[in-house]
Structure formats: C-alpha cells, structure tokens
C-alpha cells in the first residue's frame, strides 16, 4: 500500500502497540531546555532511574537567558533553573550547550543548524514549537514534562497515531510576502483548531521553492493551527542545508543517509485523511489584530465588528480581543503606532530572517519613541550575521543587537513589553500577557516588523519594496 511520508517514519519507529491504544514509539532525538526539564529529572531521581540514551539527548539554555549580559542572571529563580539544568546534565551525562558554548541558542534553531535534526528522525522536546524540525522530513512534536521524564527513562513515548492532512500550496508569493505570511493567512482562514489531531504535511511548488529557513517557519507555526507536527518531504534543498553540519553524518555514512532519505517522500497514491488546497498568490503581508494567531489578516483588512459575528462565543471573543488590544472595530491597522519591535524567536530568528529585515532597515533609522531589538536565534546565527555586517546595519539604524535566546517571544527573561504598549513581533504567539502583562502583540514577518520599526507604525512593506526597486536598496536616506 502506498504510504505517506508520515506513515513511513511512524511505522519505522513502532516498538510495540497496545491493543486498541497508542503505539510505543522510539525517539531518535530528545532536545531539552531549562524550563520544562527540572521536574522530569527530579522524578527520575526519586524513582532511582537513569537516562536510557544520553547519547540521543541534547540540552541547551534558551528560555530564561538574559540577552544583554547572558551570564549575569539577576533573577534568582531563573538562575536556579539554569544551574539545575547544568547539574542534571552533568549527573546524567547529557551534552549541554551552556552559555559558554558556541552551540548555544534557541532549541529549535540549534537542532537544525548543528545537524542534529535529520530526515526520518523522531524528535521530541518539552516545547510545543518542536514542530519546527518537521521541515526536514522528521516527525517532531512537543511534549509535556511527564513525557520528558518518560523519554529520559525509556527513550520511548506512548502516542496515539494522529490523522494525516496534506496542505497543498498553489501559486507563487508576491514580493514582500514570506512563508510567515502564508502560514498566518492559513491560520486566519481555517482557525487555530483546524489541525488538532493531525500531522500536517506541506507540499506544492511553493514549498519546493522555499529555503530551509522559510520551511522551518512554516512548520514552526503548525502548532498554532493546533497540529502537533508539521512535515515537509526532504529534497535537495534539505540535503544541501545539512551537508557538513557538525553532527550530520559524513563520508560513507552521508551516502547511506542520502539513500534512505530519498525514499522518504510520500508514495504516489498515498492517502491522507484530509487534503486542503491553498492559493498563495493572493496572500498579502499579514498582521494579527487579536489575542490568538488565528485573529489576523492582511495589513489592509478592516478589523472585524463583533456585531457581524455569527455566534455568541465568537462575538464575545472578538469583543474581548479588541478591547485587550486597544483597537476599534471597523478600522485598519495601517498607521497604528507601535512602541516596540522584536525580531527574533524560533519562528523568525534565523539568518535569512535577519537578512530580510536588514534589507528594509539599511540606511534608515528607527522612528523616535520606538524600542527595537534584534535577538539572533543562536550563537551561530549571531556570528554569521556579524560576519555579513548585519549587526552594524541594525545598530546604525537604532536597533539593539542582542545575545541569543527566546527573549521577548515569551518574556521569561527581562525583555518585556509594558502594559498597554504595542509590539510588532516576529514571534509566534499573541496571547494575552505573552510578552508581558497587558502587552499588545502583533505577529508579523521580519520585513513587516522592520518596516514598522522605521515608520513607527504599521505599514504595508510592499509599498516600500516598490521604492526599493526604483531606487535600489540602501540608497534611501532616513525618513
């Protein structure tokens, strides 16, 4: 029977099956960070259990790390978590990219760039954006702390096989529109729950034409559509990205790997439980206006009116969201002032994201009253950006250039948005309070965030690109 990419990986990892229940799935790679692991390790200690495969486990520090002076952790409880991770990794012989390591960074940025993330693997982490790694043709999903403990102890996990969904993209994106805009548009159209219970595979010529960075952004946001896993079939783009990475196979092993990986894409005639077709040529730059990633639309869209909502619950949700966000129904976001701009996170903190933002920023200056920061996703991203001179571009424009970490994506470190203030953010969640109590988060692409920083308000970045094309990049004087 023809199989999907997902089925092939899943079937190759079933250790045992409970009758009428879940499968016991073998886990190839377990990524760990400081926030969701301490209780798992204390559980192991209490039960006198060991880590079954420290060699398949890799830890980093990201969520709590201050991004101005990473080693000066003033928050006692944050320091306790970082110290606890270090101690746990020492005691259980787990490789740790700590703050001194050149491999440190956001867990979903370092996995791929170190070559830990590979096609065909099963990958888990106590973090919902683990779906990111699916961009390489892996089954990757977020787990809770009890499951972290379970994987540490057994290298396996009981999982109910999800249904499969194929999201097929058609058409080509307009200039100024990125994979971030596409996935936001998909979630705005189908809602934050449409992927619940599914592993979603993204395909189509649009996906084939994307870089690995852009594919990761797509898969990263799968969880915002409710899907625990997002996948893309591995192809030459994938292999080119992986070749030569620190932990990727090399030499004869690389050749063996390639043979395996080339067999992985879904077979002709493989059946999915659901198929969705989506035209990307119509997608415009997206901005969320509400308090979940589905509450968004194109930059020029008119904000919804509660009275137009079909259901009571929906009406209440829209009313609440508009009130929290300090927005008026029936207006647009164009020209709405922002006080903060955050470029970073596991969604858009990769080198290509920083390049795209820098192109907009070059030769311009951040509007007065706007605090703008760039937080590279990892040490490697930071170094690469600096070697290309992007740090200088950002700093000359008035951006803060920070050390790697999750930072303002969730504000567990001191990078917070004050109550009532507005942030254009390249992260993935605009939940109430996510970036600080009362903070108003608008999810956008790196280019849209960069343009908002310069203009001091939301603009349609496409109108700038026209100017760029006419005059050439980098020649425009600060506005």
């Amino acid at each position, binding site marked *: 029977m023809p199989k999907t990419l997902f089925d092939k990986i899943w079937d190759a990892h079933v250790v045992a099956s409970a009758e009428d229940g879940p499968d016991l799935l073998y886990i190839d790679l377990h990524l760990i960070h400081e926030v969701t692991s301490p*209780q798992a390790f204390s559980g192991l200690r209490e039960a006198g259990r060991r880590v079954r495969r420290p060699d398949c486990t890799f830890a980093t520090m990201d969520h709590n790390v201050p991004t101005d002076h990473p080693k000066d952790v003033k928050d006692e409880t944050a320091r306790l978590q970082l110290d606890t991770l270090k101690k746990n990794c020492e005691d259980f012989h787990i490789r740790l990219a700590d703050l001194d390591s050149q491999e440190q960074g956001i867990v979903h940025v370092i996995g791929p760039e170190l070559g830990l993330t590979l096609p065909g693997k099963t990958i888990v982490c106590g973090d919902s954006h683990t779906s990111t790694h699916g961009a390489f043709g892996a089954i990757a999903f977020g787990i809770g702390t009890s499951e972290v403990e379970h994987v540490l102890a057994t290298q396996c996990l009981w999982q109910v096989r999800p249904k499969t969904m194929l999201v097929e993209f058609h058409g080509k994106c307009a200039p100024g529109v990125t994979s971030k805009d596409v996935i936001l548009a998909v979630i705005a159209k189908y809602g934050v729950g449409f992927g619940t219970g599914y592993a979603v595979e993204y395909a189509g010529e649009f996906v084939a034409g994307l870089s690995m960075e852009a594919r990761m952004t797509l898969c990263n946001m799968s969880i915002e559509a409710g899907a625990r896993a997002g996948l893309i079939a591995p192809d030459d783009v994938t292999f080119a990205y992986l070749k030569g990475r620190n932990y990727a196979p090399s030499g004869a092993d690389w050749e063996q790997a390639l043979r395996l990986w080339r067999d992985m894409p879904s077979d002709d005639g493989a059946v999915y439980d659901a198929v969705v077709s989506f035209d990307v040529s119509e997608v415009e730059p997206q901005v969320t206006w509400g308090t979940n990633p589905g509450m968004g639309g194109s930059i020029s869209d008119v904000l919804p009116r509660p009275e137009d909502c079909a259901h009571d619950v929906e009406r209440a949700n829209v009313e609440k969201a508009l009130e929290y966000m300090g927005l008026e129904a029936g207006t647009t976001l164009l020209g709405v002032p922002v006080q903060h701009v955050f470029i970073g996170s596991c969604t858009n903190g990769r080198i290509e994201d920083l390049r795209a933002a820098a192109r907009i920023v070059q030769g311009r200056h951040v509007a007065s009253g706007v605090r703008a920061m760039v937080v590279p996703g990892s040490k490697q991203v930071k170094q690469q950006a600096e070697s290309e001179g992007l740090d200088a571009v950002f700093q000359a424009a008035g951006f803060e250039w920070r050390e790697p970490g999750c930072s303002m994506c969730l504000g567990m470190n001191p990078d917070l948005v004050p109550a009532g203030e507005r942030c254009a953010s390249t992260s993935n969640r605009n939940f109430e309070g996510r970036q600080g109590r009362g903070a108003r988060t608008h999810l956008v692409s790196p280019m849209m965030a960069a343009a908002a920083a310069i203009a001091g308000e939301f603009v349609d970045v496409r109108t700038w690109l026209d100017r760029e094309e006419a005059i050439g990049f980098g020649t425009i004087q600060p506005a």
Partner: protein
Amino acid sequence: MEPFNQHEGKVAVLNRSNVDTDQIIPKQFLKRIEKTGFGDVLFYDWRYTPDGKERPEFPLNQEATQGATILLAGHNFGCGSSREHAVWALRDYGFRAILAPSFADIFYNNCFKNGILPISLSDTAWTGLTPVIRGEMTRLTIDLPHQKIILQNGESYEFPIADYAKQMLLLGLDDIGITLRYQQDIDRYELNKRQPYQRVYGL
C-alpha cells in the same frame, strides 16, 4: 497517583473558547523546579488585578465556585504552549475533571499523567449542560467506569475515552512503570532497527 473512579463535586464555569496555557499559568511562574504550589497562581492575570487583588467578576473568585473540583470550559481548551505547569496548577487548585467541547492535544495528554480526567463533550452533552453553564445547577457527578456525566436532575450524558487512558486513571498508574515492562521490546528494537543506522542517526 490518586486513582479516579466516581467523582462528585462543585463546578466552576469558564465560558470561553481557546483558553491557552499562557493564561492558565503565566510564564513568570514557570521558574519553579517543583510540581506543587501552582494552584494559587492558576489563571493569575484573569484572577487578580496587577496589584494582587481578586477580580470579583472572575468565576474562581465567586462565592458559588469555592471548592470547585470540576471545570467546564469552551472549545480548544489548553491550546498553546506545552507547559505541563498548566495541568499541575489545575490539579494543585483542586480540579479533578475538565469538561470542554474540545481540547488541544498536548494538554489533553498531560491531564492523564496527572490524574485529571479531561472530558470531550459531544454537542448533545454540551447542550444538556446548559443549566450548569447558566448556574442553575452547581454540582455534577462523573462516573468514569460507565463513562457518564450525571446532572443533579438525574439526566446523564456519555463521554468517550480511550480504553488505555481510562485504565491509567482508574488504577492511578505511572506510565513509565508500564513502559518499563516493555524493556525487552525496546532492547530488541534498538538492536534490530536502530543499530544498523547508528552512524546515520547517532549523535
């Protein structure tokens, strides 16, 4: 883990959909390294004003819901971050069962590992619970062996649950303990299926 069999208790109603785990337990409380003590900060931003006073309009602050052990909420409950702290907080507060028309996957799974019964309500059950949502009835009985929710007026509604999940709750089992019984299968898998690809997939 405390087994779950029959449970009778007071209901708190949170009639919102897409309640995310950032709301259930805001990030500033994720820095603890224990599993307990989260109940006091459950729904923190909704429950308290910035200066720490209770917001009287929030359901958990109302007289009628004090001591509630059953939470009734809207669609897609527990979406967002995978933080199990959300479940620990609900459990620490005293909730034993959460009823909603639908749940986010990770949250749903996390419940079973902490002795909380998540119940996905059918449309019929959701409609049937209208008197509870309106506050006309305040208590429910949940019968896990028979998979039934029983209202005070005697009406009852069935709910679905996977058999293994039901057994875990009924027996209060630790699932690592269960898995370790499969030790031989895991050894065999590693030897036959994983070893040949060690050079490809090993760190």
